[in-house]
């Protein structure tokens, strides 16, 4: 994941081996890149559940919708969104939207 203006330390360096070659610290760099990717995907999906307009936009034009969040995905991850069976997804997304309220979880009062 990249933001619009990432600082060098925030960017996973994947060119020419990049961070994977620095000090043999593959696991740390891999974990960082993987975590950033997970965060990016989680943000996109969360936004799609919460925001019906964003969900429509994502359905119509995944690239443009994801750009709107200032997130850049690689081609493999972007293609996931192009391949989705949106008609199958629609009712499930609607159902998840119904579970966003706080009232069911917070009932203890005082």
């Amino acid at each position, binding site marked *: 994941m990249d933001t619009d203006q990432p600082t060098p330390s925030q960017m996973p360096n994947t060119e020419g081996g990049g961070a994977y070659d620095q000090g043999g610290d593959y696991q740390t760099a891999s974990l960082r890149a993987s975590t950033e990717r997970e965060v990016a995907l989680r943000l996109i999906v969360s936004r799609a559940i919460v925001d019906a307009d964003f969900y429509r936009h994502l359905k119509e034009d995944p690239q443009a919708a994801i750009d709107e969040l200032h997130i850049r995905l690689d081609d493999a991850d972007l293609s996931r969104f192009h391949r989705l069976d949106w008609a199958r997804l629609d009712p499930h997304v609607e159902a*998840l939207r119904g579970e966003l309220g706080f009232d069911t979880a917070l009932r203890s009062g005082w």
Partner: protein
Amino acid sequence: MQPTTDDLDVAAVAAAYEAQARLICAGDLPAPLELRGRLAPERWKLEWHLPWWVGRSFGLDAALCHELSVSSVLGLAAIRLRDDIADGELDRADPATAAEWSEALLDAALESYRARLPSSSEFWPFVAAVLAPDGPAALASVSDGADLARRGAPLKVPAFAVCQLADRSDAFPTLARCLDHALTALVLYDHAADWEADLAAGRANAFTDGRSREELLVALLSDDVVRPYFARIATALARAAELAGALAVGPLAQHICDLAERFALDSEALAAHYSAVGDRAAALFGTAQERPAPPEGRS
């Protein structure tokens, strides 16, 4: 758990409150003054029990502590009514009439103290400061939030009075700090519970922390927002319990520990709920993680 002989007789306090409120309202008990829901002892346990817990722990006799508890509930009703008038949230009551009820309830609440504390007592300037239009803000020694001050007034008056009556004025600063920490926790919890209503009404809310509804929900699904917020509540309650313990007011310390336990359960329930919804969403979109394999020959 069965009440012990030294538990507050909540039913007797409720009956005494209702009798007094009916006198003030010429026989009827209007909706804003009903105990059920609005002023219920389960919801306002601190306000109902504080004079009893502190008074008994400081050696005051049971009859006096009972009377001070009735006074505390009358004061709570008066202050809640005053807040409702200010917020325009009166339930089928005329504001002018409600203001008269509020004044009369407050007057009845102070009656017990008039009989026992001379006009030269420090209690009266304290009450005047609390009841001044901008007074409650001066009461918040831990946080200066408006909610905290509003919640604090019905507690600080009886707390101050009990300390005076028990000849334990030295204990009040510690008790006041204990209440401020407890109230900080309760107000933070309130903000978590009421965030959607507060957002809709344009009220400041610590849980939303300036975020829109969408921003907060996305954060709840994609990040751990709940546990750090509830950790602040837990910290405040731990400090409150420690101070109550230092004053040897056992039931107050126990109540605060009970709150901490319940809020911790709420925190876990909320965090687990949103994490599960986020996980199901990720599975639905096919983005649930499979970590990339390391390059050949690397470990």
